[in-house]
């Protein structure tokens, strides 16, 4: 038995060695840039010393994690991260669906109009994070366009990005995400709605169902599986996307509401108060949460929507 497996492998290798040779550089790339850092994660358990490296530094067990979890900033960081992620997962998730429904409710004679608006609506997705955040700063600064509109509604004219009161920064983050992602996120729903069998709408209309009823009874039920799938996918990646914008938008004055795991890890790594062990611990913690979310959402997606990423 063992011998047979051995000879099978041998045949496979004789036949496919060219393929394996081709794969070597690819494997090398992922080993160096993805797997080597995973080994380097060990510095989260060390009192890391740059000069002595990861093999020479002293091991301190879970000390870095103890420091991380007991620090004053950690509860705030966790709160900010969760709130922003939750906003993106709820409001940020629903807006593209609503937009797609509005697109599909446009009458057929306005096809060119629909096409134009749809194209415009997902253009922001391709705008760079640096540019997007510059636009946010421009519009929400003390004399920005949006600030002016808000002051028209009785809100004090101010630089909104410097406002350290709780919901302000979170709303800015979520709104930025929506501006960038709504059109792009709508594409897949627009396609799904367009592929619903038109007979259903006809039958419903003949039976006297108005637009609103058709929306709730036909359109939404038809795309529910897709919605569930997209929601689980998004839940799995919600902590990985968009947070570089926090790094570009936050400032010391607003740390209490704007500091998230991503920015905290960054600051502990590259600033005057750098602490590599602590940063690695917080980075590992972040990765662990990401992995858990991804696997959990993948599991749910496989059970509920019968599709999965892995």
């Amino acid at each position, binding site marked *: 038995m063992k011998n047979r497996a051995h000879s*099978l492998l041998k045949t*496979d*290798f004789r036949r496919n060695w060219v*393929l394996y040779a*081709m*794969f070597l550089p690819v*494997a090398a*790339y*992922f080993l*160096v*840039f*993805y797997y*080597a*850092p*995973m*080994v*380097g994660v060990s*510095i989260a358990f060390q009192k890391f010393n740059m000069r002595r490296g990861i093999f020479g530094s002293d091991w301190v067990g879970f000390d870095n994690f103890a420091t991380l979890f007991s620090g004053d900033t950690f509860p705030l960081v966790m709160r900010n991260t969760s709130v922003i992620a939750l906003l993106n997962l709820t409001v940020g998730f629903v807006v593209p669906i609503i937009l797609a429904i*509005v*697109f599909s409710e*446009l*009458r*057929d004679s306005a096809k060119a*109009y*629909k096409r134009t*608006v749809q*194209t415009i*609506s997902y253009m922001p997705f*391709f*705008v*760079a994070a*640096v*540019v997007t955040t*510059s*636009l946010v700063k*421009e*519009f929400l600064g003390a*004399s920005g*366009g949006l600030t*002016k509109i808000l002051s028209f509604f009785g809100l004090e004219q101010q630089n909104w990005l410097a406002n350290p009161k709780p919901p302000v920064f979170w709303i800015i983050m979520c709104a930025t995400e929506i501006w960038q992602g*709504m*059109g792009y996120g709508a*594409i*897949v729903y627009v*396609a799904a709605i367009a592929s619903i069998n*038109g*007979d259903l*709408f*006809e039958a419903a*209309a003949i039976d006297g169902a108005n637009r609103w009823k058709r929306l709730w009874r036909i359109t939404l039920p038809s795309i529910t599986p*897709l919605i569930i799938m997209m929601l689980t996918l998004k839940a799995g990646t919600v902590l990985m996307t968009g947070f*570089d914008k926090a790094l570009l938008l936050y400032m010391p004055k607003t740390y209490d509401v704007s500091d998230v795991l991503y920015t905290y*890890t*960054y600051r502990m790594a590259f600033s005057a108060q750098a602490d*590599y062990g602590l*940063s*690695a611990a917080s*980075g590992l913690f972040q990765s662990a949460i990401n992995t858990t979310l991804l*696997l959990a959402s993948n599991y749910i997606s496989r059970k509920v929507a019968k599709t999965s990423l*892995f």
Partner: protein
Amino acid sequence: MEPTKVQNRIRAKRVHSGMVGGHSVADEITDVIIGLILLGVAFICVIPLWHVLMASLSDGRALLAHDGALLLPVGKLNFEGYKLVFKDSAILKGYGNTLLYVVCATSIGMCINIVGGYVLSRKTAFRPFMIIMLMFTMMFNGGLIPTYNVIRALGFVGTRWSLIIPGCTMAIFVIMLMNAFQSVPESTLESAAIDGAGHFRIMLQVALPQTGGITVVVLLNTVIIQWNAWFNASIYVTNKRDLWPLQLWIRQIVADNANILQGASPDYDRLLIQYAVIMAATIPILVAFPFFQKKLEAGVITGGVKG
């Protein structure tokens, strides 16, 4: 005669858009409201960049005194900002760097994607193992500091390599190409093999042209990611301004301007340069956009349907 399927669909579409049973007034109003909502959406998506474009063409002094979003340039039409951008050797260098990084990273990344995708699409004994090896990197990563340490150990920190190699691809792109190669009919590949073509020939001349949209989608995504990239540059070449891509210059100029304008006698043209440079960095993508939007859209849809 039974109505054909097409006729059915056309009728159904009419029903869907409220055209059967006459135009009720309520339906007409709803149609108008929907049209207006979409107009608002388009406005919201366009106005930020439009404002920047108008600001870049404004008179610096008038612009500084102006509050709120611009629909038209304020003061005399003025191209000083763009002149400054094209005279500023640092920004031009940044532009050149960005182009260099996009071209190099995309080329290297696509080589990895195509070769990796092709190998993974073939039936070999180690295929499941190789797939798991890639998939795992999508689930877990070492994080900021451990990655930095690896790049440092390679001697990449402070060099262009740190911006070309580490971010040039990711597992999902290789997997996408694997799926694309798998969709190519096995028979065409077999007949090529019988004709004596080697794996490289089959991969590049027979299979790759048949992968269709997905290769283009991966390519476009890589280009856009590279064009917009700033984070790696900010940590790996922090103090080497010679190597900065355009995006880092934008960040720097916007930050500098916030301080300059606090001064007693601000340089008004300096104010314009930030708007001009934002446009210079964004216009290429927006101009190219109509040409590749169909492909990208198709990519998103198949990605969403397949999961």
